[in-house]
Every structure is written in structure tokens, then in C-alpha cells.
């Protein structure tokens, strides 16, 4: 018997802040010990690294097109082509068939340019471009971002936010349901006020999400720099900073909604029934931004809608279509929405947490 009721004098002023951190700490350590979490994070990091290395290899391989020529003078003033001298047409065709060279260029009196290109199964468009005569092109807005890159950036921001939301959103909902399903929640509530428990779980999950995203971002930046592709990072600086700020607020919003809707059911099997509306709120704006990123009006609207702002506003900043005050306003809207929805989330959580058994109806969950 080492414990007597008066032996320890615990600090009763223990603030709710410290308690919330204690809850958050358990949330984090439990997750960090789960094999499935570590494995999925590992796979994600490998995918990012693999993508960068793949990109670097393709870039390295794409420098010069190998072309067989019967007369090296034919390609004398063409850049980006490595000429392989051959004796005759037959040898050139043989090299093309073997894949030794990408194409062959031979003299042809009947062609208007005096040349004929021989390739295996597809016309070598790059080479044809190099050999073609093109009229001069004047760009009126040479600084604008090409559509392809805009799509890539939209996709990048979108996939990061979407992945985090879809990985960690259900995680927090699941953790809430587990506490109900295992009935441990009543002991917790006897020790800690409901909103402290709620706050702790949201903080814990958010820290995990930020940590994973930061790890991926660090991996990407280091990878791109090491493989010499860091020119891709230029111009992304400010939008990325804004993205991080929006991400933090936006993620807390989603985590709160997932936690609240998770509390409405008592079994993991029923979780989908109440969390689906939140999942929709994540997916719809994501797809809108991804697929309609070439429609300035849609992107402008989405950059103010709280659920899509974390993706759409940084995209507009990258494209240079947003005034300086726009992200500030949008962030304000997002923050106010987040505070309001956290309050709603806490209420749903408080109303639902001790109702074991059947799913709690929305009306009961929201009622005062």
C-alpha cells in the first residue's frame, strides 16, 4: 500500500490549457505508435521522393535527341540534336528500328525543305519542330503563368489539403467514436470538462497533420534542391506561406467538424452516416478548384468560401490575380467561420458524448 489519500497534494489549479495539452499528447503518442500511421506516412514520403527523382531522371534524359544523319551538314545549325553519322539510308533505317537513335534525317530532293525524317512508329514532333520554319511569335503578356503550371500548382495545393483532411479528419472522428465505444469517455468526463477534451483532441490531430505536411514539404524542397530542380520553387514562396496559414485555420475547422460528427455515433461502423456531410464539404470545393482553375470567376468565388479558400486563395496569389487585401479578408472570413463552427462542434460533442446506443439525431445534437 503506497497510496494514502492525503499523501499527495495535487495542484488543483491545473489549468484547462495544461489538461488539453495532456489529451493532445496522448492523441499524438497513440498515433505515432500505430503501425498503420507510420507505414502510410512512410509510403507518402516515398511517393514524394520518388516523384522528384523520377522528374529529375526524365529531365536529365531529355537533353539531346539522337538522330542518324547520312550527311552531318544537314543538322549543322540545329541545336538540341545529337547527330550520329551513318553511311547510307539502310544503316539509318536499321538504327531507327533498333531504337539506337530516335529518328533519322536524310536528304530528299522531292521535299520542299530538301529533307526527309524517318522514324519508327510515331512522328518525332520535337525534332520536326526543330527542323520547321516558324513565324515569329509576339507575347503580349510574357509574365503570365502558363495554364499547365497553374493546373499543377492548383493540384499541388489541392492534393496536400485534401490528403490531410481525408487522412486526419476521419482519424479524429474515429478516435472520438472509440472513446464512446469503449465507454472510457465517462471516466474522462469525470476528470476533464467536455470542451477541454474536445480542444485537446483537435490540437493533437492538427499537430499530427501539420507535422506530416511539414515533413512532406521539407522532403520536397530538399529533394528538388538536391536534384537541381529548385527553379520550380521560384515564385511559390509567398503563396506557400499563405497556404500554410490558411491550412492551419482550415484544418482546425475540419477537425472540429469531424470530432463533433464522430461523437454522434457509438460504433465505428456507423461513423460514415454522420461524417459524410463533412467529407462532402471537403471534396466538393476541392474538385471545383481542381477542375475549374481556368475559370477566374469560379476561383475568385471559391477563394472566399471557407472550405475551399485554403486551396483557391494561394492559387490566385500564385497567378497574381488577387489584390493584397484579398487573402486577409478571406482569412478573416475563414477564421470567423472556424470560431462559429467550433462552438457548434463543441455543442454537438457535449450533447452526443454520453448518448450511447442509437445514433444521435441532428436535432438532438444541436439542441441547447
Amino acid at each position: 500500500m503506497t497510496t494514502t489519500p492525503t499523501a499527495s497534494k495535487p495542484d488543483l489549479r491545473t489549468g484547462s490549457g495544461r489538461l488539453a495539452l495532456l489529451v493532445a499528447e496522448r492523441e499524438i503518442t497513440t498515433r505515432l505508435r500505430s503501425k498503420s500511421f507510420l507505414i502510410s506516412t512512410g509510403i507518402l514520403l516515398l511517393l514524394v521522393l520518388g516523384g522528384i527523382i523520377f522528374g529529375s531522371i526524365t529531365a536529365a534524359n531529355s537533353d539531346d535527341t539522337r538522330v542518324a544523319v547520312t550527311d552531318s551538314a544537314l543538322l549543322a545549325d540545329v541545336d538540341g540534336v545529337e547527330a550520329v553519322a551513318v553511311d547510307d539510308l539502310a544503316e539509318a533505317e536499321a538504327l531507327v528500328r533498333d531504337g539506337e537513335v530516335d529518328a533519322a534525317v536524310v536528304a530528299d530532293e522531292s521535299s520542299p525543305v530538301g529533307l526527309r525524317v524517318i522514324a519508327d512508329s510515331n512522328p518525332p514532333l520535337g525534332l520536326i519542330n526543330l527542323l520547321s520554319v516558324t513565324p515569329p511569335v509576339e507575347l503580349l503578356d510574357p509574365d503570365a503563368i502558363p495554364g499547365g503550371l497553374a493546373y499543377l500548382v492548383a493540384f499541388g495545393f489541392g492534393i496536400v489539403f485534401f490528403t490531410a483532411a481525408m487522412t486526419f479528419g476521419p482519424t479524429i472522428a474515429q478516435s472520438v467514436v472509440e472513446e464512446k465505444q469503449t465507454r472510457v469517455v465517462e471516466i474522462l468526463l469525470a476528470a476533464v470538462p467536455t470542451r477541454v477534451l474536445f480542444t485537446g483532441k483537435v490540437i493533437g490531430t492538427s499537430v499530427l497533420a501539420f507535422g506530416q505536411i511539414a515533413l512532406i514539404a521539407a522532403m520536397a524542397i530538399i529533394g528538388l534542391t538536391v536534384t537541381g530542380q529548385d527553379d520550380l520553387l521560384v515564385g511559390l514562396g509567398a503563396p506557400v506561406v499563405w497556404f500554410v496559414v490558411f491550412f492551419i485555420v482550415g484544418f482546425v475547422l475540419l477537425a472540429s467538424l469531424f470530432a463533433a460528427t464522430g461523437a454522434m455515433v457509438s460504433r465505428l461502423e456507423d461513423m460514415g452516416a454522420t461524417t459524410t456531410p463533412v467529407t462532402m464539404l471537403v471534396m466538393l470545393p476541392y474538385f471545383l478548384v481542381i477542375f475549374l482553375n481556368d475559370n477566374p470567376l469560379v476561383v475568385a468565388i471559391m477563394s472566399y468560401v471557407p472550405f475551399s479558400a485554403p486551396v483557391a486563395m494561394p492559387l490566385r496569389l500564385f497567378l497574381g490575380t488577387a489584390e493584397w487585401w484579398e487573402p486577409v479578408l478571406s482569412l478573416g472570413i475563414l477564421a470567423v467561420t472556424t470560431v462559429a463552427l467550433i462552438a457548434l462542434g463543441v455543442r454537438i460533442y457535449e450533447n452526443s458524448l454520453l448518448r450511447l446506443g442509437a445514433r444521435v439525431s441532428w436535432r438532438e445534437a444541436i439542441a441547447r
Partner: protein
Amino acid sequence: MLEIRNLDKRYGTRQVLDDVSFDVHPARMTGFVGGNGAGKTTTMRIILGVLGADGGTVSLDGSVLGPEGRRRFGYMPEERGLYPKMKLQEQLVYLARLHGLSSATATANARGLIERLGLGERADEPIEKLSLGNQQRAQIAAALVHDPEVLVLDEPFSGLDPMAVETVVGVLSERAASGIPVLFSSHQLDIVERLCDDLVIIADGRIRVAGSRVALREQHSTLRYELLTSADTAWLRDQPGIDVVEFDGDYALFDATDEAAVQAVLHEATSRGAVLSFARQHPSLAQIFKEVVQ
């Protein structure tokens, strides 16, 4: 002293608790008895602040309880459960820290309780790997690990094997003896009868009886006596003021109308032979319960 005053609770139109008041005294075990749905669990949840009341107060040593004060309570809910994948000791330490203990004190307390409850070799096993009986002990440990100043236990003995019941009875008596109020509910009236100093009986959300077990028994006792002699006891039937309840040769159970009639019987019995046993019969808790609830 834990004072429960005028608790009211309604679910829709159903009145679950109606003006519930009673005291839980320090250094005493208070048994909380009632049928299913009588309001025991609701009352305990309100005491712990897990559930809100529609009216009434819960106060400890004269001051109304808030979340801070309740953190010094030890609670074992009717719905058992701990984190299934968390290790036993780690889990107890976490719960103790949630109650405001420092990491070092929490660890020391957890170790002590684990040893005391005979779970020493299971300290680093996840709860889900423990046998049901051991999970029950772990649950008791979870209620005690932060050295609570008040204990509220909802059906602490349900599902325990006789060995575990003895261990838990021992631990709870120790806690009560150290000077804290202990409130526990149970269906097992024999355990309550053996264990509790005070008794609270609730039915349909209303307190029917609250007070010390001894006084309660006195109050519900009749002048019923048991007599065992070396001779036949058939003569009892003709004694004035005596009503024989049971009779079997040298044994008889009888009700008396007053003390004088009892003394007359004893006098008569000794004159007729050796009196082997002469004792007043007290009603069992089960009998009192039945009587009070009806």
C-alpha cells in the same frame, strides 16, 4: 461530507429524479440500493458532473461543487471501459495526470495500486489482453489512482469473481477507513449488508430511506426471536402475547407483542430445560428493501 440536495432530473416528460437528497459521511461506506431504472446511475452521474441536473445541488464540506472540486473524486461508471490498446500502467498514469497529479506521483500511485490489486505482472500489457476479471480490477484502479478524496462507484462488484470481490472490498474499506466518504451502488444486497455503514434506498427516482444501517435495522425490526432448547417447545403456543411463526420440535421462531412476553418465554424455557440459543432476529436487507420499496 458529501451533501446531495433536492436533485431533479427529467428526460422529456419522464421524471427520473424527484427531490433526491442524502448525505455521504466521511470514513463511512454508504450503500446505494434500488431496482433497475430507479435512478442510481443518474444520481451518480450528476454527483460527478458528467450529467447536468434540472435542479438541486451537490456540495462537499459545505461548498457547492464545480469541475475543480470534482477532479478530486474517484469514479467508477456503470458502463465500464478503458482504452483497449493502452498499457495498464501507462493508462493509469494518464488518468491520474488528467486528475491533476504530477507525472512522478501518478507513476508511484499507479505502481502501488497495480501491486495491491495483484496485477503486477500485467503492468505493461494492453488492457485488451487482460482477462475480464483483471480488466475489472484495472477499472477499480482507474477510480483510485489519483488518491481521490471522495469515491463514487456504480456497481463496483458486478461481474467480479468471489476472489476479486474480496480484494475490492478490502481496498474500499481501507479507503473509507482513511477518512473519505465512499458511495457505492449494488444489486448484491448481501455485499451491501456486510459492507455498508449507511444505506440509501431509492425507488422511482425518490429516496425512500436514508440513514445508518444499524438504525435502519432497529427501525424495521420486530420483536421476533429464535429459540433452541434441549426440550420440546410446543408449550410456546399457549404462552400469552406470543405468535409462533415456525416450529420444529426443539426449535421455534416467534413474534412477541412486548418485551415482558419475551422475558416470560425465556423464564419458562429455562425452567423446562437447557436453553441452547435465544436470539433476536433482525430483518435482512432484502426484507427491509422489499418492505421500503413497496
